[in-house]
C-alpha cells in the first residue's frame, strides 16, 4: 500500500492498491510510538471513569473469583494445589489470567470501539489492539501487588525465581495480542466475534490450570495441553513466585512457540485485511 522514503526536505508517499500479504511496517509503528503511548494512556484513564470504586475494580475482579474458586474447588471439591494454600494457588494463576483475558476482550473489540478514529484519520492500525492490551498492565501491577501481600499473609514466602516473572508477563502479553489481532481484524467484518469472545474466554479459563493443577494431566497430554499458551504462563507464574515445583520447561517451550506463531500470523492477517477496515467498519 505504501512506500515512504524519508528525504532531507520531504517525504514522498505513494498510494496505490495493494494485494496479498504485506510487510508489518514496524518502522511506521515505531515512528508513531507517542500515539501508542497516548492510546494506552487513554485506555487506562477512561477505564474506571465515573465508577464508584475506581481502580479497586482491578483488585475486586480477581479477588472475588479467587474466593469463589476457594469455596467450590478448594473447600468442596478438595482440589489438590501443589502443596500451597488453595487461595494463594488460585490467585497466582488468576493475576496473569485476568491480564490475558481482559486484554483479549478489549483488543478484539478495540477496532469497533475506535471506528470513529479508523474512518477519520490514518495511522498504523496495529496500534489500536496493542494499546488495548497494554492498557491492562496497570491493573496487572495492582493485582500483582495484592498477590505479594497475600503470599506474605499466608506465610508461603516469595521465591527468588520471581525475577523471571517479567518473561511470563511478556508471554501473556504476546498470547493476548496474538489472539487479539486475529479477533479484532475478524470482528470488523463479522460482528459475530463480539458475541463469541465472552463465551470463548469462559471456555478458555477452564482449559487453563487456574482452579486445578496441570499435574492432573499425564503425558503426552500434559505437554499437548501447553498448546494453550496460557498453560505455560500460569505454570510459569507458579514456578517463579511460589517455587512450588520444578521449572515446566517443555510446557514453556510449546507455549512460547504457539504464542509467537499467533502473534506473527495475527499481525500478518491484520495487515492483509487492514485496507478494508475503513470501508467495512
Amino acid at each position, binding site marked *: 500500500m505504501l512506500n515512504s522514503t524519508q528525504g532531507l526536505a520531504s517525504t514522498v508517499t505513494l*498510494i496505490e*492498491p495493494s494485494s496479498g500479504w504485506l510487510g508489518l511496517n514496524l518502522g511506521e509503528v515505531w515512528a508513531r510510538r507517542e500515539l501508542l503511548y*497516548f492510546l494506552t494512556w*487513554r485506555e487506562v*484513564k477512561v477505564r474506571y471513569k465515573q465508577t464508584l470504586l475506581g481502580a479497586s475494580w482491578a483488585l475486586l475482579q480477581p479477588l472475588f473469583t479467587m474466593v469463589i474458586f476457594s469455596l467450590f474447588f478448594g473447600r468442596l471439591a478438595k482440589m489438590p494445589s501443589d502443596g500451597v494454600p488453595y487461595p494463594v494457588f488460585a490467585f497466582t494463576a488468576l493475576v496473569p489470567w485476568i491480564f490475558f483475558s481482559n486484554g483479549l476482550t478489549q483488543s478484539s473489540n478495540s477496532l469497533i470501539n475506535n471506528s*470513529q478514529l479508523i474512518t477519520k*484519520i490514518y495511522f498504523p492500525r496495529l496500534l489500536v489492539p496493542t494499546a488495548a492490551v497494554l492498557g491492562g498492565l496497570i491493573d496487572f501491577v495492582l493485582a500483582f501487588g495484592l498477590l505479594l501481600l497475600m503470599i506474605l499473609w499466608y506465610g508461603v514466602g516469595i521465591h527468588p525465581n520471581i525475577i523471571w516473572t517479567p518473561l511470563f508477563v511478556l508471554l501473556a502479553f504476546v498470547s493476548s495480542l496474538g489472539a487479539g489481532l486475529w479477533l479484532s481484524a475478524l470482528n470488523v467484518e*463479522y460482528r459475530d466475534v463480539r458475541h463469541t469472545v465472552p463465551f470463548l474466554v469462559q471456555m478458555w479459563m477452564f482449559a487453563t490450570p487456574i482452579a486445578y493443577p496441570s499435574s492432573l494431566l499425564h503425558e503426552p497430554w500434559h505437554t499437548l495441553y501447553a498448546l494453550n499458551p496460557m498453560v505455560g504462563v500460569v505454570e510459569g507464574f507458579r514456578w517463579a513466585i511460589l517455587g512450588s515445583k520444578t521449572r515446566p520447561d517443555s510446557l514453556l517451550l510449546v507455549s512460547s512457540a504457539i504464542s509467537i506463531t499467533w502473534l506473527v500470523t495475527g499481525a500478518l492477517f491484520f495487515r492483509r485485511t487492514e485496507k478494508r477496515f*475503513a470501508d*467495512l467498519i
Partner: protein
Amino acid sequence: MSDIVIRARQLSKRYDLGRKGSQDEGFPSSLRKRFSREAPEEFWALKDISFEVPGGQVIGIIGNNGAGKSTLLKVLSRITEPTGGSVEIRGRVGSLLEVGTGFHPELTGRENIYLNGVIIGMQQADIRKKFADIVEFAGVENFLDTPVKRYSSGMYMRLAFSVAAHLDPDILIIDEVLAVGDASFQKKCLGKLHDVATQSKRTVLFVSHNLQAVQSLCDQVIHLDHGRIVAFGDTRTVVGRYLETTSTAVAGSHYWDHDAPGNDEIRLKSIEVKSSDNSNGIYSSSQDLTVEMGFEVSVDVPGLRVGFDLVTPEGVLIFRTYQTDTVQKGFSRLGIGPNRWRCTLPAGLLNAGVYTVLPKVAIDDTHWIIDGSAGAAFEVVLDHGISPYWNSLDASSRPGLIAPILDWKTVSVPARDCVIQGWEA
C-alpha cells in the same frame, strides 16, 4: 525536482455494496451473499481521476452530494485504499476529516488537547510548545480541567478546531470542517484557514459546500460529479460553471414564459441581477450591481409603479424601491410594449450573504398588481476593497444586514487625546 506535490493518476475507488452492509444483516442472508455466485453490486465512488496539484496552492473540491469528494479525501489521507490508479504525495500530510477526532468526553480539555494532537499527527513536544496558543484561540482557559462532556457544544467545537488549526503539515486536507459551529465561529475558522493558506507555502485541499469560502480561499477548484472530474481550473470559472449546472436557487435571475405575474395591463417577463464582472449569482461587493426588470405593457395606466423589495433569506425586508422614487411630481407613465427598468445598487453597500429581489408593481399606493411573486436570489461576497476590514474572511467582519460605506469627517480634534467625547465635544 518538480513543483508538483500531489500527482494522481487514474485514481479509482469501488465499493461493493452487497458486502458493505453485511454486519447489519441477519446471519443467513450474509452467509447466502458470501457463498452466492452473484457479483456484488458495485459502486464507483471515484473513476479514473487524474490531476496534479502544484505546491503552495489552495485547491477547492466542489460537487453535489455523492460526487466522490469525501472518498477522494479519504484516499489521499490513506484512510482507505484505492481500487486502481495511484497517488504520489510529496511532503507530510495532515488530514482533518472532522474536528476533534479521538476526543474523549470523560477526559479534560487539557488531556484532550494532547490526545487529539498526537492522534492527528503532532509530536508531544510540539503540542507543549503551542499549548498556550491553542487554549487562547479556543478561549477555554477557565475550563481546561473540566471533562469535555461538560462543555457547551460551541466550546467543544472551538477547542477541537483550535487543536487542528495548529497542526503544521506541508499538505493540509480538510473536509467540510467549517460546516460546524455558529456563524461567528465559522468566520473565525475561515480566517484562520485564510492565514494558513496565504502566510505559508502550504498546500491545502479543501472540500466545502460553502461556495463563498471556496471562492475567497481557493486558487483552483476541482469539480467532481459521479466520481469523475468535470472541471479543474480557475476558481471563478469552475464555480461559475458549477452554479450554472446545478443550482437555480442563487442564480441571480428569474425569467417567465407563460405564467408571467401581472394582469392584462402589465406583465413581468424577467428580473435579473447583474454586475460588470459576473453573472452567475455571486457578486463582489466591490462592483456596482444592477437590478433589471423587463415588462410587457399592454395598456397605458397612469400612476404605475414598478420596483422591488430587497429581502434576506429569513424574509427580513431591507428596503423597497420604485422607479418613481426620483421623480418629484406628476404621474409616471410606461409606454406600451416592452419596457426595461434598471436600478443600480452601488458598490460598497451590501454585506456578505444571500439576498433576494422580489418584484413589486402597484398603481400608486392603492392597488397591487404584482406582489408576492417569485424573485431572483443572489449572493454577495464582502470585499469593498477599501481596507482589509471589509472582507468576509475577517473574524471581526461587519455585522448587520447591509455594510454601507458612509462618509466620515473630523469635525474637531482635541489637542492631544483623540478620544470621542460625545456630542458636545
